[in-house]
């Protein structure tokens, strides 16, 4: 399926170059927003070797999310972060901006 072929080709070329030449800095600042309220934002400065799970839990606490089960999205996609370092996630998803939401639990 072709969405916007000319633009897409150009972007793919740029992305290829990006992947070859860009190295992650040692220290990164990550932006976390509550998915249901963008005004609630926290930034967390961390190292790329830090565990992403630790950073996400900290961000959720700061954003006032009480639920034990939290999810992360970035770039419009669900992000799987358990067991990964911050560097792993940044390389895989190519973003420093994330939305946090909690599961709805009803009985």
């Amino acid at each position, binding site marked *: *399926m*072709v*969405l*916007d072929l000319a*633009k*897409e080709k150009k*972007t*793919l070329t*740029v*992305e290829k170059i990006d992947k070859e030449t860009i190295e992650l800095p040692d220290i990164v600042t990550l932006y976390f927003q509550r*998915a*249901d*309220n*963008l005004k609630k934002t926290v930034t967390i400065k961390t190292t790329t070797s830090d565990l992403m799970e630790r950073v996400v839990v900290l961000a959720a606490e700061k954003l006032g*999310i*009480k*639920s034990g*089960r*939290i*999810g*992360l*999205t970035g*770039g*419009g*996609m*669900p992000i799987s972060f358990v067991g990964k370092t911050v560097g792993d996630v940044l390389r895989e998803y*190519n973003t420093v*901006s994330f*939305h*946090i*939401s*909690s*599961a*709805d*639990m*009803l*009985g």
Partner: protein
Amino acid sequence: MQNQFIFPKFFWHKLSEILAQDTDERAFYLIGSEWGNKVLIYDLVEFNYEHRSPTYVESSVHQKSLLINALPIGVKIIGVLHSHPFTSSKPRYSQIDLRDFEEYDSGLFIVVSKTLEYTALYRDGENVDDAVLEIRDLEPDEDPVIFTMKKRWKIVIPKGMTKWEIERYVPIYFSEKVSREILLGKVSICDNALDFQFPLYLDIIKSWAPYKIPYRIYFRHNVNFKSQAKKLIKELFNYHNCDLRFIPSKREIHIMNCSGWYI
């Protein structure tokens, strides 16, 4: 001010069919608009369940975030409806239900029995009141109309919204959507200048829905759009084995049929 909660008959009938088939709880996000003192429901999106039993349901952790991102301008998650299939009389909230509602700043929380007896609460900040649903067809001025702005953004508003209301409220709704899309966009460096591209997207439309709300999914540039769209549709709507009609010229995907009982 007394709010009116309008629940279209179409969805209520669909719910009665679906809930009659099931002994496990089911839950749905209520999608709609607030217009003056009216809370208008335009669609229901079922949970993509992480767990489901006769006494408990839990959504996937990603669904709400993806759903909020997918909603067109002017439409939001109005609240949550879930069933208590173990009762046929007027249902009561459980402690788990009340704890879940606390996570919302505002919302309409409905619990229904197997026979569609219901209890509803509306929370607006610290204020919590009982809500009485008006289960009926929408009036012509309450029907949603869809406008396209700048060939990219879809705006859904009640038909009866006045020019004054459109001019004042749409910029507020618009700014939130655009800021979400900017975060999904891509900055590139070209000839010593910075360029910005909004993310690629497709709008998902349920072909059978009475109100054709366009739900937007976004793509990274280096993915297979069809397979990614299928994954995101599953994550967003919990639909299985759907027939999808791709219309690239309109940037739309129409969901034609799915298996199982669904809204």
